[in-house]
Structures are given as structure tokens and as C-alpha cells.
């Protein structure tokens, strides 16, 4: 196959969803809009009648909303973080998946940020956080970390869209509505592909890649510290920050795999999202999954060995009592099974990976729930156990938040290509340059430190 045809085919495939809208797409949008509509109705009900319409009460003061908050913050880890690491290490195979990874982060963070506001008793006073914010509060750390991560992720996503947007601006002129064309010209910031512009872009991207990694770590650490900074059994743990960060990587990688499989099928990306991508991401999933198993083991072993009074109650309720189906179910189906599937070539098939990666995230959502709710149900003094059953309002808002996550992704992929066309082309050009002058490539090898040379041969 020639390079020209390869490039043409790429544009043909990747631009198709931007120009053609199928009936299925409208049906899907209708489903999402309905889901979100029900969520809005539920939230309106909550605004009218107060949080009394939820299942939360004075003992279990947090429920589904905070579980969703932690879950979405975990999912957001996947994208930008993994994309930044792959770019820095010069992993060539990253090229088709970075955009999807980055928009996953942004969509998840939007929902993550909404959840605490939905959970607030006085959303009308949200401005008080800015007016009277106290840096001693873990909640403020969260607000700062998440807004910083969101800002950085949007910038990071945006930087790599600039050249693609310029391509669309030139290519789609006259083919799309004037408004949309104007969006493309606006986003492309006058990009002409000049060497000067490339230099600036690389510089900005280089800085963003470096800072986004520690920012990603802070987000998951401070989310854990909302719990870790209290005196509660099951929460007052020193390993919570790294535990959450590893859990987030596990959850995020699984979400990336799920979305890759879905978009691959829907947008016919089989040529670009290949067996290799799924294999490499499976390796990552296995590593993060085992890391997460290790943390889970360390967590329960240390509290289970000592069996301090409240820890004993908590552990009994988790492992043997009321929550044991969730805990053991989540453990087996969310950790053991998907890790085994991802580890062996035989089971690393697309359908099993799809099921496995979805199971991982169901398991991780359950994990968030059993971090939040059982600890709060524990009697702190000779009280009764707290009981919590989510109300329809909470369930509707939760479903709507997943709808919102999907909606952001769906709309984004209607506006911008889900595979970064210019980055793919850049990769092919580098490959071609190397093939035509292998000696030059070798000579440059030892002296250059730019990431591009790193894994190029594998690409």
C-alpha cells in the first residue's frame, strides 16, 4: 500500500462521522437527552424539596453522589495522564488513542465536578467557596486540584487539536455550516503548519505533558483525603492517596479500553485501533489491576490483623455481612476475572475485553460505594447502624451523569476527529524518513533526546 492511499483512507474514515450523521446517531442522542432530562427533573425535585428526597440521613450523610464523584475522578485519570506518559516516553503506538483518552478525561471531570454541587444542601451558596474558602479543608484541596486538572486537560486537549482544526478549516470550507467553519478557524488559531508554529506547539505540549502528570496524581490523592482526613474506621488510612491513584489508573485504563472498542466499532476504526493497542493497554490494565489488588490486600490485612473495635465491625459487615455480596462480587468480577482475561492471549479477545473492561468499572463503582456508605453506617457511639437506600432521585441523577459523560463524548466526536489525523501523518512521515535514510536515523540515535526517536521503530 502506498502512503498516499493510507492517508486518504485515514481521512475518509475519520472524517466520515463529522460529515455524515446516521439515523442511529440521532436515536442514541435521543436516548441520552431523555436520560439527562429525567436527571434534570429529579434534580429539580431535589431543589424544591431539599435533600430529604434522597436516601441520605444524619448517619449516612453521603451516598450515590459522592460515590459518583470519586468514580468519575478515577475515570478521568485514564486519559490525559496516560496520554502524557505515552507521549513523554515516545511510545509511537499512542498516536491513534491520545485524543480519545484526553476527551474521556475532560468528559469525566465535568461530571466529577458536578457531583459535589448536586450533593450540596445549599447549591445557591456555591460562591461561598470562593468568598470564604479555607485552605485547611480537604474539600478546598479537591476544588483546587480538580479545577486545575480540568483546566490543564482542556488546554492539553486543545493544543493537539489546533493542527487538526486547521486541516478541517481548509478541508471542510463550504462543506459545513458557516458557524462550524468559524469554530474550526477559531480553534486552529491561524495554524499554517509553519516550522515556527510547530516549534511553539511542541514547546507548549512539552510543558503540559510534564505538569499534567503530577496534577493527575494530586487529584486522586486529595479525593482520597476527603475520607483519609477523618477519624472514621475504614477511612482513616495512610495508604488512601496512593491506593486511590492506582485504583484510578485501573479504572481509567479500563474505561479507555471500553471506549476504544465502542468507537472502533461505531466509527469503523479497525485499521487504526489494532490488536497491538489492545494488547499494550491490556498489559497496563494487568499491571494497574495487580497493583490495586496489592493495595486492597495491604489495606484489609492491616486493619483485619489488629481488629480494632470499629474496624472489626466494619470488616465484618464488608466481608461477611450486609455488604459482602458487593465486596466479594466486586472483587471477583471487577478485579480477578478481568485481570485474568487481560493477561492471557486466548482470552484477550475484543468481546471479552469489552465485557472485562466494563466489569472493571462496575467493580470500581461498587468499590467507591463500599468505601463511602458502610463506613458512614457504622455506629460511632452506641447508636443504631445507619441505613441507606438510594432514592429514585439519586438513581436518576446518577444515570443522567453517565448520560452526560456519554453526551460530551458523542458531541465532541461529531465536531473533531476522534483520531488525531495530523499526528498519525506525522508518525508516518517520521517512519518514512527513517526508512529512506536508516543510517541517518542511527547516527541521530545516541545524540538526540527528543521523545520522537524512542519507540518509533515499534510504530
Amino acid at each position, binding site marked *: 500500500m502506498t502512503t498516499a492511499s493510507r492517508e486518504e483512507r485515514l481521512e475518509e474514515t475519520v472524517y466520515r462521522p463529522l460529515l455524515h450523521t446516521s439515523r442511529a446517531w440521532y436515536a442514541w442522542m435521543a436516548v441520552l437527552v431523555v436520560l439527562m432530562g429525567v436527571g434534570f427533573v429529579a434534580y429539580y425535585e431535589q431543589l424544591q424539596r431539599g435533600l430529604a428526597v434522597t436516601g441520605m440521613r444524619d448517619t449516612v450523610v453521603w451516598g450515590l453522589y459522592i460515590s459518583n464523584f470519586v468514580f468519575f475522578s478515577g475515570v478521568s485519570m485514564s486519559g490525559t495522564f496516560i496520554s502524557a506518559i505515552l507521549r513523554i516516553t515516545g511510545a509511537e503506538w499512542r498516536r491513534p488513542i491520545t485524543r480519545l483518552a484526553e476527551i474521556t478525561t475532560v468528559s469525566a471531570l465535568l461530571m466529577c465536578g458536578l457531583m459535589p454541587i448536586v450533593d450540596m444542601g445549599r447549591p445557591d451558596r456555591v460562591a461561598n467557596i470562593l468568598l470564604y474558602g479555607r485552605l*485547611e479543608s480537604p474539600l478546598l484541596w479537591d476544588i483546587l486540584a480538580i479545577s486545575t486538572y480540568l483546566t490543564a486537560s482542556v488546554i492539553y486537549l486543545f493544543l493537539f487539536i489546533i493542527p487538526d482544526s486547521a486541516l478541517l478549516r481548509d478541508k471542510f470550507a463550504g462543506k459545513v455550516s458557516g458557524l462550524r467553519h468559524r469554530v474550526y478557524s477559531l480553534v486552529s488559531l491561524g495554524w499554517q503548519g509553519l516550522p515556527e508554529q510547530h516549534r511553539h506547539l511542541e514547546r507548549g505540549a512539552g510543558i503540559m505533558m510534564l505538569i499534567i502528570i503530577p496534577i493527575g496524581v494530586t487529584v486522586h490523592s486529595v479525593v482520597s483525603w476527603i475520607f483519609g482526613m477523618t477519624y472514621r474506621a475504614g477511612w482513616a488510612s495512610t495508604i488512601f492517596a496512593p491506593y486511590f491513584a492506582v485504583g484510578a489508573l485501573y479504572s481509567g485504563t479500563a474505561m479507555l479500553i471500553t471506549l476504544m472498542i465502542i468507537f472502533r466499532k461505531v466509527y469503523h476504526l479497525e485499521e487504526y485501533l489494532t490488536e497491538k493497542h489492545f494488547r499494550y493497554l491490556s498489559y497496563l490494565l494487568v499491571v494497574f489491576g495487580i497493583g490495586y489488588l496489592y493495595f486492597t490486600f495491604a489495606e484489609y490485612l492491616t486493619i483485619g490483623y489488629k481488629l480494632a473495635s470499629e474496624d472489626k465491625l466494619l470488616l465484618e459487615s464488608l466481608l461477611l455481612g450486609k455488604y459482602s455480596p458487593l465486596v466479594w462480587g466486586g472483587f471477583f468480577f471487577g478485579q480477578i476475572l478481568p485481570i485474568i482475561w487481560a493477561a492471557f492471549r486466548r482470552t484477550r479477545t475484543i468481546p471479552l475485553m469489552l465485557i472485562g473492561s466494563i466489569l472493571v468499572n462496575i467493580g470500581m463503582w461498587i468499590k467507591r460505594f463500599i468505601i463511602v456508605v458502610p463506613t458512614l453506617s457504622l455506629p460511632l457511639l452506641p447508636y443504631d447502624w445507619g441505613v441507606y437506600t438510594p432514592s429514585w432521585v439519586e438513581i436518576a441523577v446518577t444515570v443522567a451523569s453517565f448520560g452526560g459523560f456519554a453526551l460530551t463524548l458523542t458531541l465532541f466526536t461529531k465536531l473533531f476527529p476522534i483520531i488525531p489525523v495530523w499526528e498519525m501523518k506525522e508518525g508516518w512521515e517520521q517512519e518514512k524518513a527513517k526508512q529512506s535514510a536508516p543510517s541517518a536515523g542511527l547516527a541521530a540515535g545516541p545524540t538526540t533526546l527528543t521523545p520522537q526517536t524512542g519507540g518509533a521503530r515499534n510504530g
Partner: protein
Amino acid sequence: MDSDTSDPNQSGEAGKISRRRLLALIGVAGAAAVAAPLVPSMMGKSTGTASGEAGKKAGGVLRQWTLVIDLRKCEGCVTQDKPPACTEACNTEHFVPAGQQWLRVMNVKSEAGHTYYLPRPCMQCENPPCVKVCPVGATYRTEEGVTLINHERCIGCRMCMAACPYGARSFNWNQPQNPPGATFAKYSPEFPVPHRQGTVEKCMLCAHRTADGKLPACAEKCPMKAIYLGDLTEDIATNGTDIVKLSTFLGENSAYRLKEELGTRPRVWYIPGHGQEYGHHVGDERATQNPRSWQELGATLDKTHEGGK
């Protein structure tokens, strides 16, 4: 014995300041450069943990309030076949919203098998976990060592409820019923009426009454006189009839605090007992009756409620 009561108060301050500094430093480090210009103003706003140092204030002594609950006298009002009078006094004094008990009397069955009653107000901790975690400084500690809530600032995140190891806080999940005229009552954190939906509530040691030289409602209405209001500054406590030297009273009677091991340093002390002074036997397992609400007790808002402010 003396050191038991006065030392935690004195020595605690150095630790508190360094902890605040440390937390602030961690916060600043984590907040990234974006927030740097905001730091001074944010820190300036965080007047939450007011210094608990004993000292003079203009026009008199700066009190350091504490409660002593003598469990030898508390039998949960079961021998009188009545709901706990302290809880009901609290309900009528503050128009405590339905379903909440700011002062809750618990039935405790000890591991040794005996039964006793444990009234649980807010512990007014010297190292209050709730104050630390509040994102907006809506809950704060006064100079007199009482933790209050500014219901006009509270955003209803309930982080303080998750942080409180005593379960002393309640939330207004819906709009609580207020007494007639409450809309025009002068709201203050010391006397938080009218109650507001979506905000956190708790015992505030009747700050509006102590300012006026009165006992908290629970202490005043306790038929057994089991609740003492104490002042660490003058080392004195009273239940309205007896006056005792606080440090001696606590020491001689082996007073303890709930969950001392956590380091929250509560200002509520308990003298161990099981209501024996009112003839309650350890085998008497009668549970306390449900306290009646302020509506059932027919409480109305009047001048006396408005307190000293």
C-alpha cells in the same frame, strides 16, 4: 489532678498552631501556582479555630466553657417514667427540628453487662475535626471554646458530619418547621433561629444563655442536676444548686471524656456511674423514652429566647 484539666488547654495551643501551619503549608503546596495569589486572602478568612487561651477580655473574664455530666445521677429519666428532660429542654429552647436530638441520651449496655445512660451533647472539642474540614469557615470555635455554626454561610456539604467522631451533628434535609414569629427573630450563630434548609445543626452549649449568665437549658432542666456548666478559667462548675472546684471534682471522681484516644480533646467530661444516686440498678434495662418535639411541648418564641445578644 489539676493538670488533668488545665494542661490540655494550655499545652494544646502550641500543637494547634503548628498543625495549622503545617496544614496550610501542605495546602499551599498542593494548590499549585494557580491559587498562589489567593492564599493570603484565604488564610485571612480562616478564622475558624480561634485561640482558646484563657485571658482577660474587656469588661470581665474570658470564660472557657465546659460541661460535666455526672452519670451517677443520670438514669435517663426512666425511673421517673418520663422522656429525658435535658433533650426536651433543648428541643424547646432551640426549636430543634423534627428528627434531630442535639443532646441525645443513649442507652449503653457495657461489655461487663451493666446498663447506664449517656447524654451526648456536642463535645466542644479543643481540636475540633469539624472546624478543620469546613471549606467555608461556617463552623468555627469561639474565644470561649464553643463551636458554633454560621447558618448563613454553611453550604451544606456535610463534611463536618463525616468528620465528627461523635455523631453530634444533624442536617436539615428539608425545610424545618419554625415557631411563629421566627422569621423575624434575630438570627445569630449563638441562637440559630429560624432554622434553614440545607444547613448543619448541633448543640452550641446554649451560647445565648451562658452569655447572659444562665445555665444551658439542659443543665437547668435536669431533674437530677446531673449536668454541670464549668469554666476552666476560674476552675469552677455548677449545676445550679451545688458549686464545685472543677479540677478537684473531675479528679476525685475519675472523670473521663469520650474517645480521648483520638486527640480531639473534648470539653465535655463524664463522671462514671449508672444513675445509682437515683436508685437505678445496673440490671434495669429500661430504654429512655422518645423525647417530645418542641411542638408537642408547646414551646413558643418569646423574649427570653433571644438571650443576651
